[in-house]
């Protein structure tokens, strides 16, 4: 039998290609036709070094969305989350955010990006006018800087400046009680590390004027070996050390510093220690490290918070992270705002969100507020305590005073030229 098929693209392949092409371009119309559900888009980091944080954000969002959908959805519309990986690249974050709105028909965005990615998504929100809640970026300038302000964007995240004020107040108390005058710092060498450390030192000196910084170390972000840094600090012989290393960097640092018995020689203040991702990974967690709360289910010490932490653990077989509670809170805000606005229209929801106070397991007094003048989260549980090597890891957390935070934050904003 002779073969009759001619070389080249067959008719079937051509038809299939046309079909695929038509489906691609018809997607937006199909999406619009299915508007019974409400789609919420979420670019976040699901691959690479901080994938664990992105995954924990997704988990928390899905946990909350499940509850809302079971209770009837947002204004009667079931929520469908469309979550995509940006790989932590701002250009990808911007592309995905645009695609989520323009093609997938998402009516709102939860921005699960860190640092530069969140600023890229912010520009997309500015351009498209879509309602956007940032849920992971702690950079204060995202909402404090009036140049960034747009009516449709909010930030449901803790802030570096709040942590520094509370941390410095707590550290100054211990410094005075124990006579800690010689301090060293060791933080990652990028904007977050430099800003947060600078602000902590500023307020520490304000509360305890005797304090003197005798050594500064700025290891690179994601540096694998800290021997040089540890020996430099030990040689300087400070009485106390401040660090805002985080995640894998912090755990590697502690494991390596343990070899030199560093924690027996000085008081250590590591703002990002009290997060399960760090607490459960460190091989020998030293007793007595001072840390800010990131997320632990025992602070705020309420049954609601403990129940939320347990529910998350039961579903995902691991504890939530700092990003988890922030994302969960953002979904709670959306749900409450839609209820009040009685509409899923982004503009109306944004109006209600401005200045909205909701009940929340992560609130310092059981509530959190989306501050009206800068669209940022306030009133969340914030405090410092000391670690123990087993659960509950940080048994006694001293809560920060929000009144003092507001006063000093206002001064800080003025000094930065933001107000």
């Amino acid at each position, binding site marked *: 039998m002779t073969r009759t098929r001619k070389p080249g693209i067959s008719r079937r392949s051509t038809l299939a290609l046309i079909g695929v092409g038509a489906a691609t371009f018809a997607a937006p119309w199909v999406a619009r036709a299915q508007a019974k559900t409400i789609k919420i888009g979420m670019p976040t980091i699901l691959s690479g070094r901080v994938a664990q944080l992105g995954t924990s954000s997704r988990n928390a969002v899905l946990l909350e969305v499940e509850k809302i959908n079971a209770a009837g959805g947002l204004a009667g519309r079931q929520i469908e989350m469309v979550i995509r990986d940006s790989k932590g690249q701002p*250009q990808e974050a911007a*592309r995905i955010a*645009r695609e989520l709105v*323009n093609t997938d028909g998402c009516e709102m965005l939860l921005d699960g990006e860190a640092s*530069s990615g969140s600023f*890229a998504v*912010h520009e997309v929100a500015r351009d498209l006018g879509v309602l956007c809640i940032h849920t992971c970026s702690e*950079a204060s300038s995202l909402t404090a800087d009036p140049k960034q302000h747009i009516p449709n964007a909010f930030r449901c995240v803790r802030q570096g400046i709040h942590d520094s004020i509370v941390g410095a107040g707590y550290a100054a108390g211990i410094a005075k009680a124990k006579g800690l005058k010689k301090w060293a710092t060791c933080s990652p060498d990028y904007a977050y590390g*430099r800003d947060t450390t600078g602000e902590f030192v500023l307020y520490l000196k304000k509360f305890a004027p005797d304090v003197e910084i005798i050594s500064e170390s700025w290891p690179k972000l994601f540096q694998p070996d800290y021997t040089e840094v540890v020996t430099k600090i030990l040689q300087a012989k400070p009485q106390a050390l401040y660090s805002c290393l985080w995640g894998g960097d912090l755990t590697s640092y502690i494991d390596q510093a343990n070899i030199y018995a560093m924690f027996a020689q000085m008081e250590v203040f590591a703002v990002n220690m009290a997060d399960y991702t760090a607490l459960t990974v460190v091989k020998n967690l030293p007793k007595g490290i001072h840390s800010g709360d990131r997320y632990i289910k025992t602070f705020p010490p309420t049954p609601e918070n403990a129940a939320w932490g347990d529910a998350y653990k039961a579903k995902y077989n691991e504890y939530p992270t700092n990003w988890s509670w922030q994302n969960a809170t953002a979904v709670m805000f959306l749900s409450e705002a839609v209820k009040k606005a009685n509409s899923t229209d982004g503009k109306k929801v944004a109006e209600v969100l401005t200045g909205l106070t909701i009940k929340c397991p992560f609130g310092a007094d059981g509530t959190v507020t989306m501050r009206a003048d800068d669209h940022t989260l306030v009133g969340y549980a914030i405090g410092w305590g000391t670690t123990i090597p087993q659960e509950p890891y940080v048994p006694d957390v001293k809560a920060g005073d929000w009144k003092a935070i507001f006063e000093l934050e206002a001064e800080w904003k003025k000094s930065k030229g933001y107000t």
Partner: protein
Amino acid sequence: MTELQAGQGAQPLEVPRIDARPQRYRDLLVALAAFAVLALLPMVFGSKQLLDFVIRCAAYGLFATSLNLLVGYTGLISFGHGMFFGLGAYGFGLMMQKTGVPIPVAFVATLAMTCVVAVVIGAICVRLKEIYFAFVTLAFQMLIHSTILSWQSLTGGDQGLRGGIPRPPFLGIDLSNHLHLYITSCALLVVGLLLMRQIAQSPFGYTLRMIRDNATRASFIGIDVWRAKLVIFVLAALFAATGGIIMALFVSGAYPEFAYWTISGEGIFINMLGGVTTFLGPMVGTVLLLILNDTVTRITEYHGIVLGIVILFFAVGLRKGLMDFVVEWFAQRRGEGRG
């Protein structure tokens, strides 16, 4: 890749035509036709995603094709070409944010600045060969990336240029309008490709191929190899910077990731996908990579594995880029037809 290996993989040298004008007219016609097709796309398809896709193709396509001027035509494997992409984005963004000059002025000034930087870096790098050239370009890229991260007061550090890039209208073009941005990006892409094509087909382009194949012979017949390499290094930098400007306009900002080594890596990846022996290889590679990236990241977060398998298929299976394969296949078929 050594010069010898580069020579083995390359097409035999064609003798340039004495009268290059017909070829030039043909290129111009192809460019005009391509621009017309691109400009008509938004009228046929209403998809904003498609326009975004073409804008990104313009940014990466200019970047990857300019890299091919170095890799494919001159045999200079640059691992640091992404620094010019980043410089273009930052230069343009800063100019628009800080000075408020009209967009065309900022565009030209950014290219002028890139030119100066490329001359300085190129003068040092092009003296070196092979792996030494590759690593010194990478070192300069990391230097520029570190500078962007550290010079917070100017660049915003790791948070990038914030607050959006102002885009005041000029000559009736408003780049904050999506369609205007699309048409402008297409125009920059087509003009950029046309210019690069002219460079590649000019006597200078053939000089570069000769340097790639045998630099010693080129210098013996009186070619100043260092100068020729420097000129193409600077020209390639200018086109890469143009790609960076398009990207800055697309995301309305500039971020340190634009000047990171991964961007250079993507450029090399694109060239491997599309092929380095044809002029349009990198452009085809760009379209392929972006389609792959956009579809695979939709489906799975393990996109690294999928992209890795694809590159393995091209590197180990085909042993060449897609365009190289297609061109060879056509040549073979034509040969068979004649036979």
